[in-house]
């Protein structure tokens, strides 16, 4: 018993010393209702399709083929200065399956999992660095997640797994041409053409699970980093005039040439390492603790780097008196973000409250503390974030051998999750900051359900 207590104490100590991993919709709101209800503390206690995210090694524990489908919706009530900012909800389908088997006598399993948002496959958004935005919730969770993993169990006490997660990046070209009226810009006649492509990017994940006894298991998981690029190039060639835009007429003053290249890391997911444990306290009750290290210090904020070339020669005879011709825009200086690595503790419990021969009922609860990795926004940047307390709960029903065609089980789980972000005050060093001082805080509700059929 002493080693178990020491191990648990070590994990708890890490948990108490730590804090967020909000890098994609799954990091922020969980994957699967059982796992979300348990605060995401399942790295050593997962065996269904959600193992593709929490710990691929857990797939090797599957008893038979199973298919899951579910849905969740997370609604933000995030505000600045007491005004709701209308951060879009994160909502969509979750689904996946596990196919176990044996290869040369060694158990193995293949698992797939997907989170498919209702509204969009991915959203790209490039904002100026001074525009206030909920850095962890506004855009980065609006994207599809798809994972494929393989796991083996070379011995009964060891499972190993790994795979890839796929996402999409964007490459775009914008061309503008036409006639431009310097003094009456809204009389201009410009045409534009957009050419955009979606490119796939992938990052790896690996996991291991060690069962030191029938009551105690440990897990170690690595999730790789990835970044999604958004590159837009624009070319403008236009005749600049001071009269009605009529193409090459006598009113043409000069020809404007503008080259614009914007490069943005639209979404950056830092690498993560998870250390987890699961302790079966009694046959009906077990408790889990996970700690996630997130390499936030490598984070690249989604701020656009702009390269501009403006060519606007003076017309014959020079500029008319009183006109201040446009000049080459000053280069934008991207300020470094203040961000530090964090440890994120997750705690979860599951109690089998009802155990009958034909069905079982479960009550679950969990807690997660995400200390914001982002430093005070006292300068021109406004990467808004706040510490997050995540309280979750859920219920589950498992029907055992419900029908002849279903020799396995049927499970139905629901979850509710409340994230509380205590209000912070952002104070600017510069009184003439165009955004000024403000407060920020709020809460997020997340509800969902997942059904699984096992064969």
């Amino acid at each position, binding site marked *: 018993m002493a080693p178990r207590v020491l191990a648990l104490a070590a994990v708890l100590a890490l948990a108490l010393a730590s804090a967020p991993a909000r890098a994609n919709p799954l990091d922020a709101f969980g994957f699967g209702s059982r796992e979300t209800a348990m605060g995401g503390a399942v790295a050593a206690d997962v065996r269904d399709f959600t193992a593709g995210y929490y710990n691929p090694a857990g797939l090797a524990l599957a008893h038979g083929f199973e298919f899951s489908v579910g849905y969740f919706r997370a609604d933000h009530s995030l505000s*600045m*200065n*007491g005004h709701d900012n209308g951060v879009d909800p994160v909502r969509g389908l979750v689904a996946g399956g596990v196919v176990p088997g044996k290869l040369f006598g060694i158990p193995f399993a293949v698992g797939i999992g997907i989170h498919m948002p209702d*509204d969009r496959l991915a*959203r790209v958004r490039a904002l100026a660095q001074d525009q206030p935005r909920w850095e962890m919730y506004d*855009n980065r969770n609006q994207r599809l997640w798809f994972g494929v993993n393989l796991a083996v169990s070379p011995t009964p006490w060891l499972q190993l797994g790994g795979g890839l997660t796929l996402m999409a990046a964007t490459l775009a070209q914008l061309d503008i041409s036409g006639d431009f009226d310097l*003094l009456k810009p809204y009389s201009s006649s410009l045409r534009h053409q957009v050419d955009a492509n979606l490119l796939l990017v992938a990052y790896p994940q690996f996991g291991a699970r060690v069962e030191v006894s029938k009551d105690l298991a440990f897990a170690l998981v690595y999730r790789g980093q990835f970044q999604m690029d958004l590159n837009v190039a624009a070319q403008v060639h236009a005749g600049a005039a001071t009269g009605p835009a009529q193409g090459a007429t006598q009113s043409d003053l000069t020809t404007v040439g503008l080259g614009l290249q914007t490069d943005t890391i639209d979404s950056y997911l830092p690498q993560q390492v998870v250390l987890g444990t699961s302790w079966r306290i009694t046959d009906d009750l077990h408790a889990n603790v996970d700690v996630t290290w997130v390499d936030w210090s490598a984070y690249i904020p989604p701020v656009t780097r702009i390269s501009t070339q403006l060519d606007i020669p003076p017309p014959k005879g020079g500029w008319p008196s009183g006109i*201040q011709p446009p000049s080459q825009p000053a280069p934008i200086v991207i300020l470094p973000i203040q961000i530090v690595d964090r440890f994120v503790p997750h705690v979860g419990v599951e109690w089998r409250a009802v155990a009958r021969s034909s069905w079982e009922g479960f009550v679950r609860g969990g807690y997660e503390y995400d200390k914001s990795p982002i430093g005070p926004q006292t300068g021109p940047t406004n990467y808004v974030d706040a510490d997050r307390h995540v309280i979750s709960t859920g219920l589950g029903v498992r029907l055992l051998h419900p029908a002849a065609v279903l020799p396995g089980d049927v499970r139905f789980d629901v979850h509710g999750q409340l994230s509380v972000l205590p209000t912070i005050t952002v104070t600017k060093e510069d009184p*003439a900051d165009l955004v000024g001082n403000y407060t920020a805080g709020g809460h997020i509700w997340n509800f969902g359900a997942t059904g699984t059929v096992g064969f």
Partner: protein
Amino acid sequence: MRLARLLCLALPACSTLASAGSGDQDLPSSGVGPFQALSQTQVAPGDVAPYVFLGEASAYREPSVLPATSDPASPAVLMYVVAHGAQGDVIERTRADDGRSFYGDSPDLQNFPRHIPPTVLSATLAWEGYSVGGPSALRAADGAVWLYYAAAGGIGLARSGDGGRTFTKAGAPVLGLGFDVAWERTAPRAPSVAIFPDGTWHMLYASGSAIGEATSTDGVAWKRVDGDPSSPALDPVLVPSPTVDPKTLGPGERPPFDEGGVDDPLLLPRVDGTGALQVRVLYTGYGAPAGASPRPSSIGFAARYGVAGALARQAEAVYTALTPVAAPAYMQASGPAMLYAAQQNTSADPGHSFPAIIAAFDVSGGVPGPLATAPGSP
């Protein structure tokens, strides 16, 4: 089986319906820009954007605006504006129910030639010389309209008990020449007055190429205050940016937009989202000293926290245009904050310009509402 097939089709279908994203509603802002000039669809028919009040003979400039109604959501404004008069500059009054379609604007005059903006103030006292200008209107606690103005001998005050239609002048300037103030090289001009949350009256004014401050307990008796108490002399609260040698600038860098002078302060105190008093100031920044030609100008923003002290400036102008722009006025209703200013108008003939009033809006506050017709009375 049929149901299962239907579900298989319906679930992916739900995931492909796009919707517009949000997340940027009601973001915090100082409310003072950057400003975007009105587009052609946002000004009255007949006007050329961004001009909203134009009359070549009058050469309208130096606007000051007040809410025209007690409804804080209404965009209706009263505007006091300097115009060429028969014997010097005068202050005229006009009005727009939508903040953009002004009584007596040139398109309005084409439909209603009798819509002549009335003159509410002209030089009649000895200390005023031949012209008045620089109006700064505010509504006092009793509802009366107080109009501060500039003239040859300093800054004067006129009060109106009929909603700002007619005014009665105080006999003498309320802020005269600063003979003992080293930095004031000219008579004070371009006043801007506001009442702070603690009840004190504050005035910013221009003199020479700098901006100073005075305070009062009643709006009548004013005392100059020091922008830098650490030095023995009385200092301005805002001076031009230090001059930068163009040879030291990197590619694409420009010298400060206000290294040639600061002028036309507009005092806009507010209590920000954290409960702190932020004293916001819009002003004209000149890129070349007085007398230079050309003399580019833009609208800048400076501010401080607290009731006293020097102002810190925003490095970039909050409104700039192809032609010089000066003398900001500001209106905040339910929509975006509106900026009014005088800008050289060359839309009819690039070789001939005259000042007229433009409008722009703070892009952080959305877009202006629908247009209305010009009112039937000023």
